[in-house]
């Protein structure tokens, strides 16, 4: 039963460790989710398992009826890759649909806003000019009490002095 040499195991272990560190860091930063971490880590875990545990690789080769264990290795990696790509394709399709929907709704909203703006700018004035209306309102306000200035003065004069004057 062929086994991997120490040199091979060291190289594979170094690659696997570096790669796992890389993708775990990306996951911690929110750039990958847990599902992506699990699927991408197969690139490191499966070759490591086959190199460190050759009996396991041979066992799988016997079960699948394949002569060479590395065929099982590549087959497993390909299967994981297909599943990953399938999920990405579905996700892209959903994002595409959502993107199209948002663009449509935004375009309709923009048209509505422009229509309202156009309507406002073209609307004729049906009442007296705004300035006059304000003036009329001011003039029409009846004074029900003393003028404000007078009221303040009265209050100042009436407030009892409780402390020393400033």
């Amino acid at each position, binding site marked *: 039963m062929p086994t991997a040499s120490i040199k091979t195991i060291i190289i594979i272990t170094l690659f696997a460790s570096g790669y796992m560190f890389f993708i775990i860091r990306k996951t911690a930063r929110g750039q990958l989710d847990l599902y992506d971490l699990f699927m991408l880590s197969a690139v490191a875990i499966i070759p490591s398992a086959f190199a460190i545990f050759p009996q396991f690789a041979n066992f799988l080769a016997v079960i699948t009826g394949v002569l060479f264990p590395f065929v099982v290795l590549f087959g497993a990696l390909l299967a994981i890759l297909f599943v990953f790509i399938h999920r990405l394709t579905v996700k892209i399709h959903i994002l595409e649909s959502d993107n*199209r929907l948002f*663009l*449509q709704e*935004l*375009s*309709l909203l*923009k*048209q509505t806003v422009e*229509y309202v703006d156009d309507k406002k700018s073209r609307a004729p004035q049906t009442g007296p000019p705004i300035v006059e209306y304000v003036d009329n309102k001011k003039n029409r306000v009846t004074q029900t009490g003393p003028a404000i200035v007078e009221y303040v003065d009265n209050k100042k004069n009436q407030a009892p002095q409780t402390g020393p004057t400033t």
Partner: protein
Amino acid sequence: MNSPRVLIIIPCYNEQGSIAALLQEISACQRGYETIVVDDGSQDATYQVARQFSPTVKQLKNLGIGAAVQVGIKYAHSKGFDFCVQIDGDGQHKPGEISKLLQAYQEMPHSIIIGSRYLQNDTFRSTWVRRFGGRVIAKVMNTLFSQCAVTDPTSGMRLMDRKAIEFFAKHYPHDFPEPISLAWALKAGLTVGEVQVKMRTRVHGNSSIVGLKPISYMFRVLGYIVLARFMRIASL
């Protein structure tokens, strides 16, 4: 009884040369049709020209004719129109023929009335590849959907009633929209009718479906039609 409110949806892409004449022609019909031009991200002055004559929606990005038509249908749905009629922005579809679609609806109220080039006479000039592709698509559609008997499933001139407007506002295909929308509508239980109309040859611009593209178009459309026949509309 109030006359029905009709909205004409005109999807456009780089049609600055033909859109003004088309809108003026619609206005000259004096039928009280309202219009909405949907500019599908044109790079020319289509939007500026169309705005002078009609409410215009400019899509922020080119999304294709299916998305553009759906924007028009959503507009019709939100404004409560009774009918919407889709015509092309290149001037091929004569506005005067729209009344035939409305009349056909009054005689036999199908949810969708297609303006067919081939229903009664076969005089419309098109390449043999396109004609062959259209015939095959029609044949397959009529076979898979027993309640359907169309001759021109790829026609871009069609009338939709409120039921169709409500359906298409939610579900409208963005790839090969003309034939696939019919398949989806038939699957959802809507009915489709046809009436013969006259069409003009394109005045400006060129078709994007040229050469042998109609053959690949045909195979892809057939795939989608077969898929539509057997899938649930809720999963659209």
